[in-house]
């Protein structure tokens, strides 16, 4: 496969294992995706589906009980998995940023906003000491914090949740990263603030051309803010492609069920259809398709082996528009023509 020049990130067959008390689990299983400059990828899935572990693998910030077992993570052409910890320190906070879920806990309570934002300039040694203050004010301005000069000496507890998330964004975009990972950045916020934050991220993206991985379980937000989407289930990507195509014509039964589970005002007459059952226990995965126990379309074949259409897409390529993961032939297996 030819690597596109525009690809900022190219994750190939990433597999991350976690040692737990009940044995080793594969939290991220053979995951591949690409992200081009200025694009936004929505990473969707239930809790425990491997979204966050994928992000932490990219950042090389996995907890000590976890390790990347195989695969490659090419960032601007270089494999991050071969970098030394010192080299990763230089990349993090400068070329790759990451926003965490809960802004109430992600800022250090004992340092001022100015200090915390200033550190990304100070420790990446790309600014002179006396320039740091003005750089901080500039980036606080960019994330629309009113009267930044007055807020410079404030502490996190004097800010609201939305404001703190803006500070978090300021910290992570200060050095104009090429990639921003947003791990459920708005889950802990009010709905109105949510949209403000997402619009802000999009604005910054349009100015700077950074790529964004947007981790969420909110499909509405994916539809509004992402170019591509990758749906994860039990550690694997089950479907990926341009948002428009996937949403208009979801191929994988899990994706279909997810979409059917979104409340819609226009269809208020319809009943919501929750997906029955629970995600599988990671230490005891089904032999065949991992979604099979909950799948309405499952056949005998699914229980025995992974349906071949799934295996086929794992080797398949990127995420650019027009490239679908599954051909009609593959889907035929799952069309309930003969059953219902």
């Amino acid at each position: 496969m030819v690597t596109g020049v525009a690809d900022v990130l190219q994750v190939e067959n990433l597999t991350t294992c976690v040692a737990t008390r009940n044995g080793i689990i594969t939290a991220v299983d053979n995951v591949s995706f690409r992200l081009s400059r200025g694009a936004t990828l929505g990473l969707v899935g239930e809790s425990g589906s491997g979204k966050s572990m994928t992000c932490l693998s990219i950042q090389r910030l996995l907890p000590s009980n976890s390790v990347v077992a195989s695969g490659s993570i090419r960032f601007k052409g270089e494999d991050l998995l071969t970098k030394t910890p010192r080299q990763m320190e230089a990349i993090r906070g400068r070329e790759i940023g990451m926003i965490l879920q809960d802004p109430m806990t992600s800022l250090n309570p004992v340092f001022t906003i100015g200090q915390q934002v200033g550190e990304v300039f100070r420790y990446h040694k790309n600014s002179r000491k006396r320039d740091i203050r003005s750089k901080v004010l500039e980036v606080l301005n960019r994330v629309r914090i009113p009267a930044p000069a007055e807020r410079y000496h404030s502490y996190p507890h004097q800010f609201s949740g939305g404001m703190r998330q803006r500070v978090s964004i300021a910290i992570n975009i200060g050095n104009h990263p090429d990639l921003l990972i947003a791990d459920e950045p708005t889950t802990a916020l009010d709905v109105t603030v949510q949209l403000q934050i997402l619009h802000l991220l999009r604005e910054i993206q349009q100015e700077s051309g950074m790529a964004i991985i947007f981790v969420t379980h909110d499909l509405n937000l994916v539809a509004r803010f992402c170019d591509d989407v990758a749906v994860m289930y039990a550690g694997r990507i089950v479907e990926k492609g341009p948002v428009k195509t996937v949403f208009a014509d979801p191929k994988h039964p899990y994706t279909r069920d997810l979409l059917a589970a979104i409340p819609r005002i226009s269809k208020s007459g319809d009943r919501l259809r929750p997906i029955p059952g629970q995600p599988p226990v990671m230490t005891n995965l089904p032999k065949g398709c991992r979604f099979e126990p909950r799948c309405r379309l499952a056949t005998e074949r699914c229980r025995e082996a992974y349906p071949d259409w799934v295996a086929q897409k794992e080797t398949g390529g990127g995420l650019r528009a027009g490239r679908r993961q599954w051909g009609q032939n593959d889907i035929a297996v799952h069309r309930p023509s003969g059953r219902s």
Partner: protein
Amino acid sequence: MSKYVLMRLLQSIVTILLVTAIVFVVIRVIGDPTHLMLPPEATAADRELLRRTMGLDEPLVIQYLRFLGDLAVGDFGLSYRFNQPAMSVVLERVGHTLVLTFTALGIAVLIGVPIGVMSAVYRDSWIDLTGKLFAIVGQSAPPFFFGVLMIAFFSVHLGWLPTGGTGGVQYLIMPAIALGWYSAAGTMRLTRASMSEVLEAEYIKMAKIKGLPQRVIIYKHALRNACLPVITFTALQLGVLLGGAVSVEAVFAWPGLGFLILKSIEDLDYTIVQAAVTLIALSFAAINLLVDLLYAWIDPRIRYD
């Protein structure tokens, strides 16, 4: 902020008053010093005369108020045993206790905090295991016992250090280590626990995401948050060591405050006890105030509440 300080100051004054009142009452309940001051053959009239001259015949409340009035001008009365102003006897001894206390505390902090931090950062490593061993030994051996062992080895067997008394640094080494190791063990365990908790915090993850060097993450971001309980513990230790170094002072014949108070209670030399306890209460209050200010300086959330 000034309101915070003022409130703390008022609380300290109330604390000191309460402590002096309790000590005042208790020491008078224990017994009548005139029994010890007069020879056994003295008559009841003699004793009554002495009680009157000492003001012991008046109601307790009046006695206490007089004590407070004298206290306001710094007069703690005469010690009948030493026939000197009680406070000057106390102050003579307090210097020795302070030297011992602060050396022991210095050992506790300088050893306990770094080992605690390293144990939390490199959990289950050899540093952590060594630290654990060090803490278990330190906390299970009472300081006086450890002191006796040291005397047996370093003084009697090797003859390197004097067995007791005061003088140069050589007299200070063993009592300070005996006291300090015990405190160091607690300091270390608390630092480790507090650091372990803070290192799991989201803002530490954020610090890593920012690409900060490890030493900045550990010593700036984590330790500043983890040190609050350690500071409290150290301050408490300071109080404990100030008044409670009695056993170690006895083992090493260290002429400190603890030993003096013990002896004065036995002899019902109440002016000394009052002077010493007031001084200890004062320093306790001062330490607490200092800790509160330190808290506010470290954690802005306390400052603004």
